[in-house]
């Protein structure tokens, strides 16, 4: 299972608290994680990446194992720690309100 942490706004939209766990078929990449996430939570379509171009929204960032991977090609394989669920895939939004 892949562990995913959403920013607060998207947790509200998806009606979840805390982490999400979903099944992702190998290879585990940004693309396959987001595909699975949007299949399980269709209300998130278009919020993390553009529905047409599939490009990451400018105010959303991805972190894996403490590293900012937002600018990696989205089909790059992610670390084993993400694939095994040892570490969460962290989706971070720009801080609202600050």
């Amino acid at each position, binding site marked *: 299972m892949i562990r995913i942490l959403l*920013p*607060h*706004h998207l947790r*509200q939209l998806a009606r979840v608290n805390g982490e999400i766990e979903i099944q992702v078929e190998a290879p585990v990449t940004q693309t396959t994680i987001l595909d699975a996430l949007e299949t399980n939570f269709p209300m998130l379509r278009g919020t993390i990446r553009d529905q047409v171009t599939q490009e990451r929204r*400018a*105010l959303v*960032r991805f*972190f894996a194992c*403490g590293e*900012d991977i*937002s*600018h990696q090609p989205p089909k790059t394989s992610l670390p084993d720690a993400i694939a095994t669920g040892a570490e969460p895939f*962290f989706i*971070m*939004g*720009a*801080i*609202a*309100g*600050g």
Partner: protein
Amino acid sequence: MPKAESNKFVYDGVPGTHQWYDGTQHPWEFKRVWHLEPSLTDPDTVYAGVEDAALFRSTDGGKSWHELSGLRDHETGPKWQPGAGGMCLHTIVLDPSNPERIFIAISAAGAFRTDDGGKTWRPINRGLRSEHIPDPTAEVGHCVHRIAMHPKRPNTLFMQKHWDVMRSDDAGDSWHEVSGNLPSDFGFPIDIHAHEPDTIYVVPIKSDSEHFPPDGKLRVYRSRTGGNKWEELTKGLPQSDCYVNVLRDAMAVDSLDPCGVYFGTTGGQVYASADAGDNWAHIVRDLPAVLSVEVQTLP
């Protein structure tokens, strides 16, 4: 070389870059002034906190402004990033017992302190925990919303953070949470009673994506214990269908006894309490969104 003039704010040297919303580096660009803080001792000296985050000082009554660039030149500068409101230096707290000591806060870098009149600065964010950033206990990156100090106890600071109300008793070297029984620990302003250093005021807002009071009830919360135990103050405030926000600079206290407390809303009302928060009444309404409330007590 560009020359600083009245209402003209020019960064020292080559401004460099900070982190942008998407994690890339972005040039420092002056956008606006967020906060002016007059000197406690010299009527011609005033500090300005600006966006993109920097601290300026005028010693000629605002005719010219010069950056205290040791802050922006801090080694963590490239890691600072904007909140949704921009990367603003919004809080300036001067220490009445030590003219060399200044506290500032930046969204979203955190709090910083100088002990040498602004030449050098260090982050003072130990004890803050921000779940929405990659490293929740990072040295910088915290979205501090406001800091308040009572002049009689300058080593004690109270902070309203993006989430959490925090307290420090060692001039910011360490912080601990005092949110206690608040219905939400998200909010913007925080202020202190003029005569009681342990009586503090906040206005809880539902969440970072819902900038209105929980349950549509506009309630000021007062702690008489320096945090942790809070009482709701509602008399004279709308207790249904109220969806305004209270911004970080929009709360103030006067120096009367009993202490007067004032705050303005994004709905254009200004509320006042002449009895330290027990009873409230609006003294102005139908203004544009209130950004700042200041009180002057006339003799």
